[in-house]
């Protein structure tokens, strides 16, 4: 039995302890905002926060999460108005949108540790998140906008 907090709610799971958090969130809790893209931490689509740290849910076994606190895109901000979410909308970042939850979670984590990131810091933090539509130019702009409140 693993006890874990997800978006502020206590959950307990007594299934396969090797199940990755990704499938636990999606299949067991119905939190499908966290996306599958590669299964091996190559694309970042499944990025969530574990105790505030951006983490790939696809390679994080549920058994490693006892007592930890998980935040998904659904729990990032109650009203969906985290500064990163707002700037993403202001700059019309998404195309198909599939990778964007992971991008937003990664960007939000970056801004908690680096208040005003340089382009290099943005690239370093975001290079694990793939966007096949190619929204990168706008992602960079949106992170800068969120950082400066512009």
């Amino acid at each position: 039995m693993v006890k874990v907090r997800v978006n502020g709610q206590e959950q307990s799971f007594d299934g396969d302890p090797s199940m990755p958090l990704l499938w636990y969130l999606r299949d067991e809790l119905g939190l499908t905002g966290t996306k599958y893209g590669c299964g091996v931490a190559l694309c970042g689509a499944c990025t969530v926060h574990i105790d505030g740290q951006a983490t790939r849910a696809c390679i994080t076994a549920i058994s490693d999460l006892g007592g930890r606190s998980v935040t998904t895109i659904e729990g990032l901000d109650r009203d969906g108005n985290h500064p990163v979410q707002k700037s993403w909308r202001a700059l019309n970042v998404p195309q198909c949108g599939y990778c964007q939850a992971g991008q937003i979670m990664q960007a939000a984590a970056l801004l908690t540790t680096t208040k005003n990131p340089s382009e290099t810091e943005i690239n370093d933090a975001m290079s694990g998140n793939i966007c096949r539509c190619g929204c990168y130019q706008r992602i960079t702009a949106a992170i800068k906008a969120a950082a400066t409140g512009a």
Partner: protein
Amino acid sequence: MTPVHAVIENVSRRGFLKGIIATGSLVIAAEFLPARAALAGYATGADKMPHGVRSDPHLFVSIAPDGTVTIVAIRSEMGTGSRTSLPMIVADEMDADWSRVRVVQAPGDEEKYGNQDTDGSRSLRHHIQPMRQCGAAARLMLETAAAKRWGVQPGEVTAQNHEVVHKASGRKLGYGELATDASALPAPAADQIKLKDPAAFRYIGKGATPIVDLFDITTGRATYGIDAKLPGMKFAVVARPPVFGGKVVSFNADAAMKVPGVEKVVTIEGTPAPAKFQPVGGVAVIARNTWAAIKGREALNPTWDDGPNGSYDSAAFKGQIEETARRPGKVVRNDGDAEKALASAAKVVSAEYYIPHLAHATMEPPSATVRIADGKCEAWACVQSPGGTREELAKKLGLKEEDVTVHVTLLGGGFGRKSKCDFVLEAAVLSKAMGGAPVKVIWTREDDLRNAYYHTVSAERIDAGLDGNGKVVAWRHRSVAPTILSIFKPDQTHEAPFELGMGLVDVPFDIPNLRCENGEAEAHTRIGWFRSVYNIPHGFAVQSFVAELANATGRDPKEVLLALIGPPRIVDPRKSPEVADFWNYGDPFETYPIDTARLRRVVELVAEKADWGRKLPARHGLGIAVHRSFLTYVATVVEAAVDDKGHVTVPRVDTAIDCGFAANPERIRSQIEGAAVMGMGLALYGEITFKKGRVEQSNYDSYRVLRIDESPPITDVHIVPAGIEVPSSGVGEPGLPPFAPALCNAIFAATGKRIRRLPVGDQLAA
């Protein structure tokens, strides 16, 4: 024209067999034509698509008593913005307030909604006129209802911003108050409908309307194919034959069943080639969650009979098709006498290019959920072809089409992959095996890359003859590539007209002796549409070769490009008898001719905006390329920098696009920005290779796509302004073809090294 070619004329990406039957199209055309004529618009191929096109507001618009206007989106959203742009056009024409508009997605129902295939960069170009007409008709119905209510002449009332106003008396009625009366009216005759003066547009052409799913996407609420949730839903993954056409010989079902959570192991029959959109077969593991299914599959330990494609080796195939391109092929365009002119030329320049197989690698892999209950089937699927999917599901399950519902989710990328419904058919087979329980099929990334429909693989050879002044007097282009027809019909070894028309026989150059040939090539895997399709190899060869000619004659590439395009004129490839069946993207040539004035304009515009010839640091270079595809003209200038280790970066990209009237400039920009990123990833890394019939790549490590730290920091998009009378043309695909040649031309300018084989890979490594 052979029957196959006649069919392809009107084909959409799924519609090949549909087209053969082609019963509905004429009827629909007859229904639609009078309406279109009355619009005094321009002709498009929309009414010739399977099931044609609709514009009746009763189908698309409904209004609630509170005034909420619901508009039906009939095209799938995969990132181009069509789910927003089409309803936005309706809303503007009917003077609805966009903040009070709700968009709902149509299920697959082409008898009702007309053609729903989201492919071929057609959605906006085929619907801007019908959607305007639909909105204008709705507006007239609202005005008529209000006039009746007040007992005044319809001409005395005006719709504006969600209400109808009687100016003389100052009376007003909101759309919600008029809904019931208006909806009871018949759709007005086409000659009654008056389109808005474009000067009065609030949304069309403004680019200020965010996509309807923006909030949901940024909050994780948006629902894609993989996100379907149904009570009692099971989860399945499938072990598919590693070689296309292979069959399972043995597997250990017991071991899979021992994995906790696994409920059933089911064999899916493959279909002998040509298999169109049928599943490739294999062994499915159905479980209570995805993870159990994945673990169950790992325990299966299947063995396979590889079948006839077990020897497919893409490296060896490269040699074969290159050899074929050195010999004469089937002549597919012939102006003048290129052979004679080559023989007598003062100088001959020749080059061979190779463009590999590609995989779409959509961020959302194929995924679908199907449930069968009481003789009815429901599917939730990320498909570009909901109508075709419905048809195939009905056939597969032996149901009537009206008993099959295809709910269209958002698509986490499409790029042509999701025009093929094989993954939905898998879910149907598995649901049936589970007694109709809902089953979600999930393709892992490895499945997606190893069992895809691949972009073709191509060898292109161009020989040009120059006179004593360096002017090109002869051009012979040989293209050799397996055809997409191979998934539909046996023994297809030549590119079809719809492939030849993508940048080969439509080459817009002013050369008196011009010959295009197509050699034979057999397909050894599933070949499918990939964003911009055969424009990728054809455009890469032609636009790389132009810069090679510039180098060979010591001239500026842009000047050579403009000289080859020649004076402003209409180029009609059909003048060559070999191109009698010319495919103009399914649209009338008269509406969308090949206009070299527009081609020249995008070249000149991009050169001006990019400051062509600007001074650059050492090991930086500029490259230019232009390509017309999907009836749109796109020119790109890439600045490339190559360091002393051969590592390529792109500091800046400029792209000029002439797509006729720009209905949603903001989404046009995003498409072109994205095309630069995808184009750069494909050019640098994109390659699927086969060994013993098996794909050698498996995930984003071995099949690399571009990441943010490698992405061009600046991509400027320059849209050629055009009035609404200029027919809108494609946007989703045409940004891609010019990118790779512009990049490789820039690499040449930076290093003197010519890339003739894609991807660039480590060819520049010191």
